[in-house]
């Protein structure tokens, strides 16, 4: 009987497995092939095996490390800001949302906008000559910060990303906050626990697993950022806003160094895999 189910399971799972193999497997095999080959657009169909040369080239390229450092800083700062803001909003607005659930729909609007569109939108509204924000600042106080100047551009892209994705963290925290049994809060209140202490000693510890997941997801998303930065400021003067994804894109399409870009992609994948494994291990350990 068990054997029969095993066969049935295998048969039923095979279309999905084949589909995934075709969709994910083919690019993975191609990336591995190109990552270990001397490949350009002229030799796409006849790559020559070059061992670890592409990996040596990538790790010797200071732009790669500059991009890795940018992605690390960007991913960390945005993850922390989004989670802090999302948590604060979820806890602060939870009573209001309990009465008026439509507030959630308004708060998550930024998430609905495609990141590339978001970049283009900021490019317009922050422009000194066409954008409404500099226009009103000039009208009211006679000057406006140059939002996309070399001095301010990192802060601007951080804020743009934070404003778009805080609602994601907010949704996670709101769900976690609302799932805390009301009896626990009532019991604590009856015992005379003050709201601040209630949050730090009871609610926050219960939301820690969600916080961990939210920080992790937002870090990964921030680390691999591409579209909103690329449409807003490109790779930045001197490559100052080049993220890992932008580095891979430009190395592949702009410079035609296909093997090198695939090697960078493989390194990115391996590092993400390591981070994911460590995070899962920490999560398991914390839940024990």
């Amino acid at each position: 009987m068990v054997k029969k189910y095993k066969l049935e399971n295998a048969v039923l799972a095979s279309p999905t497995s084949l589909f995934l193999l075709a969709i994910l497997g083919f690019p993975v095999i191609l990336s591995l092939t190109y990552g270990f080959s001397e490949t350009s657009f002229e030799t796409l169909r006849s790559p020559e095996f070059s061992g670890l040369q592409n990996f040596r080239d990538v790790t010797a390229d200071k732009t790669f490390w500059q991009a890795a450092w940018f992605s690390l800083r960007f991913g960390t700062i945005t993850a922390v800001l989004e989670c802090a803001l999302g948590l604060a909003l979820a806890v602060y607005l939870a009573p209001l949302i309990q009465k008026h659930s439509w507030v959630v729909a308004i708060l998550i609007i930024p998430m609905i906008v495609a990141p590339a569109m978001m970049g283009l939108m900021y490019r317009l509204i922050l422009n000194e000559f066409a954008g409404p924000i500099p226009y009103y600042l000039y009208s009211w106080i006679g000057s406006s910060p140059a939002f996309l100047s070399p001095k301010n551009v990192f802060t601007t892209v951080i804020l743009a990303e934070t404003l778009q994705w805080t609602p994601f963290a907010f949704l996670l925290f709101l769900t976690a906050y609302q799932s805390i049994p009301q009896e626990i809060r009532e019991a604590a209140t009856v015992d005379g626990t003050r709201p601040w202490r209630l949050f730090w000693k009871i609610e926050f510890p219960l939301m820690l697993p969600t916080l961990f997941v939210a920080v992790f997801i937002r870090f990964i998303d921030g680390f691999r950022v591409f579209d909103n930065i690329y449409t807003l400021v490109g790779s930045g003067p001197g490559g100052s806003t080049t993220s890992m994804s932008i580095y891979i894109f430009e190395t592949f399409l702009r410079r035609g160094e296909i093997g090198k870009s695939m090697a960078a992609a493989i390194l990115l994948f391996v590092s993400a895999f390591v981070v994911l494994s460590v995070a899962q291990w920490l999560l398991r350990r914390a839940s024990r």
Partner: protein
Amino acid sequence: MKLTAKLLGVTALSSLLTGAVHAEVTVLGWPGGPEETALRAAAEMYNARAEVADDDKVELLFTSRDGFFDKLQVDLAAGSTAFDANLLATYSIGKYAPFLEPIPLSDEAGAVFGDTVLKTMQFEGAQYGVPTDLSLHFLYYRTDLIDALMADDAAKAKYTEIAQEHLGEALAPKSPEDWSWLDFVANALYFSQSVNPDSPTRYGTVIQAKNLLFNMMVFHSWPRSYGADWMDADGNITVDSEAYRTALSMANKLFELGATPPDSTSYEYAEANAAYSSGQVAAMVQWNAAANDLTGAQPDTGTFAPPSGPEGRFTHIHGLGLGLNAAATNKDGAIAFLQWLSTEEAAIAYAKAGGAPGLASATAAKLADDRPDLVQSGDYASTYGFVMNGGTSANALSVYEAQAKEFTGFWAGTQDLDTALGNTTAAMTELLK
């Protein structure tokens, strides 16, 4: 089963019918803007010709400008048969040449376009495309501001004082047609409120300095006028030269002194045009394609070739054109269309429909009433036009990319000039070896 068979039959039949009404020569054009309008008009005219067989009629294909050349590169490398002829640009011919075939032009092509323009579509001596549009740069300046400056002795004295203080020379204001790059900088400083609080404009100029290859094309007329080139005759990279150092440093002065908007390191074509159109910029160097927009927004706008340097006056030129896909399924039909496109009849039709072909003076004269701007751009292209040594090589685009990254880094203050030029030399040595 019967229903399935019927559906399959209907699908097959409709596919055949659709194929029958499709044209047999597919041309991938430059989407949006006057180039698309002009190509549509030319294709319509060609398809209406009696001698063009139904199998050779032209159908146009347009995608999006965003990432156009990236997508084209992938399509060509993959041997796509989705189009028979495709867009080409001077700076990408070498890159795409392995996937293209040289084409014969009409006998009158030389007289219609002239050698300088035909060369913008050549690679290693072979003609890979028929030129359709010519791009070069104009100096745009506010005539009302210049006239007011020239008529005011106190203002002229202030101008000279500013030039003396920041450039070390007591320059007097001049007509923009006589400007050197030093005059351009002096004018930019005078009309910047950060240097001259009485300036009627916020900025004297706007330099589009986003890390983008096209912005380097706008810039490099400047070092060229000081004698710069990418390589010498022996193939040695010569970018770390006094000419490049002078031009980069002069431009940097405009950033340091606030004569260009502080976030212009994120500007490209659209932002720079918006700055000028707002009336807050006194003069700028920009593509000729912006002429209608800029003069429309600021009617008191004069145009001339970019300023001169010790080695003369120069303007970067490059052409857009159409070439033959090596994997084309209807090569003969595509060649016939491209040959016709290189005739005077086609060039005039293309120009009248809004295109900007680089025409020899005799042909341009026939358009003097309809398109006087083509006479000016044709004249500037033949008199001041240049292509850097290596500017059509296989890696020309990557060279521009490398320069964009390093030079914008210098202007943004993230690296010094020696580092920027050292990195550029290393990258170009690798790319042009």
